């Protein structure tokens, strides 16, 4: 190793140590706040354009936002142990509830972020001591989407019920989500509930899925696969989130969402304060801005997501309501599932699905 290489290696080590110490010091002094965001259209852009400048102005805090998957968030935050570097995590609500059950969240005090008090009641998930731990960031109902153009052309009535998935005119054209996805788990529980079961007795859900198999074209885990099948004209009816209808329509395929008469399970995104995370004052301000009507309206208009905030809907025009396809008028048809009960047995359901549903 020559002198130059030795010097370069030493400089590299010093730089790494300094950088790490710098980040740690910045977080200790709260000049930097890390947030994990869910992967959703325009989510990071909206947060960085609206919330980041306000936090910089009021708290002198630089917002560092990273969009990653929920399971990855849990893994990273768990790995940080008692020395959390992240202040806020936007995860799928069921994943968030499970993470909070494991002690990864700190309870949220609504008085410190007054805008969170405008949420619908169902939008707040609480821990065993009834303290809020996860707040819904959007409203997504898992129901049935259908190809409006294909059904019209063939004079087929749109589906209106979970039982319609088995209608003979849809045979070979139906796709459902596997329980490996949160939406698929919700649909499985819903099928179980329709047939006398539920979170505690999933057998009827599996029986209903087996009965549905002759009608199935595909079982998918990722919405990207559904998107392909949809645009290729292979599938006309699918069990998925309501936000897929405007997404697929925007991709050029006429798609509508049908809210089943029996109801649709609600699977929203959620946000939590990370237990032991730094910058608590800035984190509460972040939540307050996030749930302000202005920011929620921006998310609805740009990202096509239904807001869980009651007051935001008072400012939405009729045209905007039509674009979102799930409005407060439908909220009473949304079914809240017991995710704590589901999370404890979900891996077994996935394993059973892999064995029984082929």
């Amino acid at each position, binding site marked *: 190793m020559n002198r130059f290489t030795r010097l370069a290696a030493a400089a590299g080590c010093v730089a790494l140590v300094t950088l790490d110490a710098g980040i740690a010091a910045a977080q200790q002094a709260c000049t930097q706040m890390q947030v994990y965001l869910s992967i959703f259209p325009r989510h990071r852009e909206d947060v960085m354009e609206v919330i980041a400048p306000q936090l910089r102005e009021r708290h002198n805090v630089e917002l560092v936002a990273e969009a990653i998957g929920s399971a990855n968030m*849990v893994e990273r935050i768990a790995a940080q142990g008692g020395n959390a570097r992240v202040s806020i995590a936007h995860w799928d609500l069921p994943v968030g509830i499970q993470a909070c059950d494991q002690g990864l969240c700190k309870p949220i005090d609504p008085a410190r972020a007054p805008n969170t008090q405008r949420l619908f009641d169902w939008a707040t998930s609480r821990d065993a001591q009834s303290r809020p731990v996860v707040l819904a960031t959007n409203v997504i109902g898992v129901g049935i989407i259908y190809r409006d153009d294909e059904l019209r052309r063939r004079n087929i009535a749109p589906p209106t019920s979970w039982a319609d998935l088995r209608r003979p005119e849809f045979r070979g054209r139906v796709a459902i989500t596997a329980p490996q996805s949160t939406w698929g788990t919700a649909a499985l529980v819903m099928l179980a509930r329709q047939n006398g079961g539920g979170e505690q007795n999933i057998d009827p859900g599996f029986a209903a899925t087996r009965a549905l198999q002759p009608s199935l*074209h595909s079982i998918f885990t990722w919405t990207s696969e559904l998107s*392909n099948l949809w645009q290729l004209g292979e599938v006309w009816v699918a069990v998925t989130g309501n936000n897929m209808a405007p997404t697929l329509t925007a991709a050029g395929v006429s798609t509508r969402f049908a809210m089943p008469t029996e109801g649709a399970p609600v699977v929203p995104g959620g946000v939590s304060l990370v237990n032991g995370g730094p910058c608590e004052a800035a984190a509460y301000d972040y939540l307050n801005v996030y749930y302000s009507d202005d920011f929620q309206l921006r998310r609805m208009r740009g990202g096509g997501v239904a807001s869980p905030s009651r007051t935001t809907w008072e400012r939405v025009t009729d045209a905007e309501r039509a674009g979102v396809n799930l409005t407060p008028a439908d909220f009473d048809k949304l079914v809240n599932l017991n995710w704590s009960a589901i999370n404890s047995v979900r891996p077994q359901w996935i394993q059973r699905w892999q064995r029984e549903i082929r």
Partner: protein
Amino acid sequence: MTRLVLSALGSGTREGGVLRWLLPLLPVLVLLLIFFLLPLGELLRMSLLATRPMPRTPDPDVTLANYVAVFADPLHAEMAVNSLLVGLATVIFTLLIAYPVAIYLTRCGSWERTFISVACLLPIFVNLIVGILGWYILLLPFGVLQQALQWAGLIDGPLRLLRSFPALVLVLTYEHLPFAVLILASAVQNVPQDRINAARLLGASNLRIFRTVMLPLTMPGIVASAILVFSLSVSSYLIPILIGAQRVPVIPMAIFSYGTEQMNWPMGAALAFVLLVSVALITYGFTVLAGRLTRRGQWEVT
């Protein structure tokens, strides 16, 4: 220290010889240690931890329960059989196609050689996902192929081509064919023409020349191709999940499911370790068997 190493290298001692041999290998050994052996050790350690609801929960118990579960579960056995059959079938079909192509490649004219080489290499140049999606779209129940068959009156209603064992082997063969052709072309190229001429002068038929001259002399290429294609096929995840999916479950799909969908990293690690050891043993067994079949690894015609 540097002086010590240099003096050892300069001396004609046994240590100096070992050091001279080791020094050029050092970068590779360091890379292997950091990026292969250490992660492998971590994988083994994780596979021996008790399954906990959260990843990296502190102080988990050390146990063999994951390995017991791997071997006790009939689904894993089914997946292992599927993986093995998919790997073997892909090797057989790849070799059956690649060998004649390799022979022709070494005997045809220059423009033909260029054309065949480009055609064979195309799957490598095309992005893997794009290549798989091409097959996926082709094999769909209402896709181009089935519509053409239906239009020609050959089928009545959609066939289940996608999500089937033959479709999975077909796509794996397509993806791994270039590797086999390249290796076999090199092996065939190295067969001395005078051996073939001599056999022909002695009255050997084409079949006998192939069996007694070509096959033994190209066996190293065949073994290398088979090992590469088998390993790639057995450990492939993307092609099985998109083409075979839940109807042809294979081990890598279960590893992915445990790691990301069920948050059960220890089980995923145990399954990954079992797959790694199995593939290594099968590969070693195949090499030994091939060595025995070709005159104890002499790779020569006596």
